[in-house]
C-alpha cells in the first residue's frame, strides 16, 4: 500500500509535467491544426535557459531559495515565450502567408551554416549570413516568391525542420555534452505515513497546478482567451469579428512555449541531467498525452498528461523499467484504435 501511494505521488508529479508540455501541443493544434514538432525543443530550451539563469551571477547569489527558484522559473518561461513567438513569426507564419524578407531570413541562416562549415570563425559565420540574406533578397526581388498557398503538409514539414534546427543548433550553442542542472530549491523531505514527499515533487505539483489554473482563467475569462477559442473554432469568422488572428496565434505560441519552459524546469528538478536532445522523448510522450486527452482540448491535455505519467511510473514500479518509454506508445496505439478523438475529443466535423 505504501509503495502504491509512493508511486501515485511520483506518477502525479511526472504526469503534471507532461500535462504542461501537452498543453502547448494542444493549444497550437487548436488554433492552427498543426502538430508543432518544435515544441519539444522549446522544452529543452527552457531547461537550458534555466541552467544559465541559475548559473548567472544573480542566480548564484540567490542560490537554492524561493526567490532564486522564481527567478529561474519566470526567466526561463519568458525566454521560451519569446522563442515560441520567433518560431511562429519566422517559420510558421511565412508558411501560412509569406511576408517580405522571409527568403532573406532563411537564406541568411543557411549562409551562416555554410560560413560555419567553411571558416568556422565568427567572421565567416557573419559573412555567410550576410551573403545568404542578400541572395535571398535578390531572389525575392527577381520574383522567386514563396507561394502563399497554405497546407497542413507544408506546415508539418516546416515543423520538423524547425525541430531539427533547434536540436542541432542547441548542440552547436549549448554543446552536445550533458550538463547538470543546479539545485534551485532547498531540498527537504517529509515522511507522511511512509510516503516520502520531497520539496522537488511538491514544487512540481504545486507549480503545475498553479499554472494550469492560471491558464484556465486566461482561456475562459479574458478577452484574449475568448479570442483564442474563437480562432480555434474558425479562423475566418474570427477575422470578421475584428480579431487580429496573427496576433492571437502568436500569443498562443507564447503561452504554450512558456508552459513548455516551465515543464523543462520542473522535470529537471526531478531529473537534473540536461542535453540538447533531451526534449525528444518527453515531447513525444506529451504529444501522446495530448492525443489521449483529445487534441485541441485543454482539459483533455491535463488529463492525458496525468494518465501517461501515472501509467509510466506504475509500469516501472510494478513491471520492468525497460518498459518505461514503451508504455506511452502502447497507450497511443490503443487510443487510436479505440477512441481516435481522445478522451475529451468530440468527433471532428469536416468543414465544407
Amino acid at each position, binding site marked *: 500500500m505504501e509503495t502504491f501511494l509512493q508511486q501515485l505521488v511520483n506518477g502525479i508529479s511526472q504526469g503534471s509535467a507532461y500535462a504542461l508540455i501537452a498543453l502547448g501541443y494542444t493549444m497550437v493544434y487548436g488554433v492552427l491544426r498543426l502538430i508543432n514538432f518544435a515544441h519539444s525543443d522549446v522544452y529543452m530550451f527552457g531547461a537550458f535557459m534555466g541552467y544559465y539563469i541559475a548559473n548567472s551571477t544573480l542566480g548564484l547569489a540567490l542560490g537554492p531559495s524561493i526567490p532564486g527558484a522564481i527567478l529561474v522559473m519566470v526567466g526561463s518561461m519568458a525566454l521560451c515565450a519569446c522563442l515560441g513567438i520567433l518560431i511562429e513569426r519566422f517559420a510558421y507564419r511565412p508558411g501560412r502567408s509569406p511576408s517580405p524578407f522571409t527568403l532573406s531570413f532563411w537564406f541568411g541562416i543557411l549562409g551562416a551554416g555554410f560560413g560555419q562549415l567553411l571558416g568556422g570563425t565568427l567572421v565567416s559565420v557573419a559573412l555567410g549570413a550576410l551573403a545568404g540574406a542578400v541572395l535571398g533578397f535578390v531572389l525575392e526581388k527577381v520574383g522567386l516568391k514563396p507561394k502563399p498557398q497554405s497546407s497542413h503538409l507544408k506546415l508539418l514539414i516546416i515543423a520538423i525542420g524547425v525541430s531539427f534546427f533547434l536540436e542541432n543548433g542547441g548542440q552547436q550553442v549549448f554543446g552536445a555534452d550533458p550538463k547538470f542542472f543546479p539545485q534551485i530549491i532547498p531540498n527537504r523531505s517529509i515522511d507522511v505515513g511512509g510516503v516520502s514527499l520531497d520539496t522537488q515533487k511538491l514544487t512540481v505539483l504545486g507549480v503545475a497546478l498553479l499554472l494550469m489554473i492560471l491558464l484556465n482563467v486566461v482561456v475562459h475569462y479574458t478577452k484574449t482567451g475568448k479570442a483564442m477559442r474563437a480562432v480555434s473554432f474558425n479562423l475566418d469568422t474570427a477575422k470578421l469579428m475584428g*480579431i487580429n488572428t496573427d496576433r492571437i496565434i502568436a500569443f498562443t505560441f507564447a503561452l504554450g512555449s512558456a508552459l513548455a519552459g516551465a515543464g523543462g524546469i520542473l522535470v529537471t528538478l526531478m531529473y537534473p541531467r540536461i542535453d540538447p536532445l533531451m526534449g525528444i522523448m518527453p515531447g513525444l510522450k506529451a504529444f501522446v498525452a495530448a492525443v489521449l486527452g483529445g487534441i485541441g482540448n485543454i482539459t483533455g491535455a491535463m488529463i492525458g498528461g496525468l494518465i501517461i505519467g501515472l501509467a509510466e511510473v506504475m509500469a516501472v514500479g510494478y513491471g520492468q523499467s525497460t518498459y518505461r518509454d514503451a508504455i506511452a506508445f502502447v497507450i497511443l496505439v490503443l487510443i487510436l484504435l479505440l477512441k481516435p478523438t481522445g478522451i475529451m475529443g468530440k468527433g471532428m466535423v469536416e468543414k465544407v
Partner: protein
Amino acid sequence: MSDVMLQLKGVSSGYGAIEALRGIDMSVTRGEIVTLIGANGAGKSTTLRNITGLVPATAGEIVFEGKRLNGMPAHEIVKLGISMVPEGRQIFANLSVAENLDMGAYLQKDKAEIARQLERVYTLFPRLAERRKQLGGTLSGGEQQMLAIGRAMMARPRLLLLDEPSLGLAPILVKTILSAMDEINREGTTILLVEQNANAALKHSHRGYVLETGSIVMEGRSSDLAADPRVKEAYLGEK
C-alpha cells in the same frame, strides 16, 4: 444618389485558375438595402468576401467611405465599420451565446456602449436573451441566424453584409429574420444582402443587382427587377 458608401469598380476575383468575378461594378448608398441575387456559384459570396478582405480581389478597386479596402487585412476592415454575417452563420459553437456577442464587440472599447448595444440586440431577438448562457452550437438554425446577426451588430457597423441569411430556414423564420433586417436598416444601418431567395430579397430591398457567372447582368430598383420578365423566369420561378 450622392452619398455613396461602398463602391466596387471593375472587381475581379478568383480561386486559383477559377475566375469567380469578372470585373463587376456596383455601389451601395448610405441608408439603403441593396440586394445581390443570383444562382449558386454566380459569385455572390465571393463579392462579400472581397469586401471584407477574406479573399483578395485580383483586379479593380473597392472603396468604402473614401478609403480603398484592397489589400487591407480583414480585421482592419471591420474597424472601419463593416460587419458581415457569414454564410452558414458560423456561430462559435464552443462559446456561449453571450460570449459570441462579446466577440462581436471585440473592437469596442466603451463598456457602456457595449451594454447599450447588447440591450438593443436582446430587444431585437428576445430569444437570444433567454439563451445567453447556452453554447452557440446547441441553438436551432433560426436562433443561430439571430445570433450571427446580433454578433455582427455588436460591432456597431455602418454597413452590414448578410450572406444568405434565409438559407435552410423555415418560411416563418425567414420572415422573422428579414423583418429584423428591415428594423436594423430603419435604425440607420446600411445593408448589402446576398440571397438565393430572390423573391424575399427583392421584397425587402430598395435596389438590386443580378449576378450571373461572375458578371452583373441587370441592376435597378428592386420592384422593377421583381417585375422584369427575365428575372421572373430565371429567379422567381414564374413564366
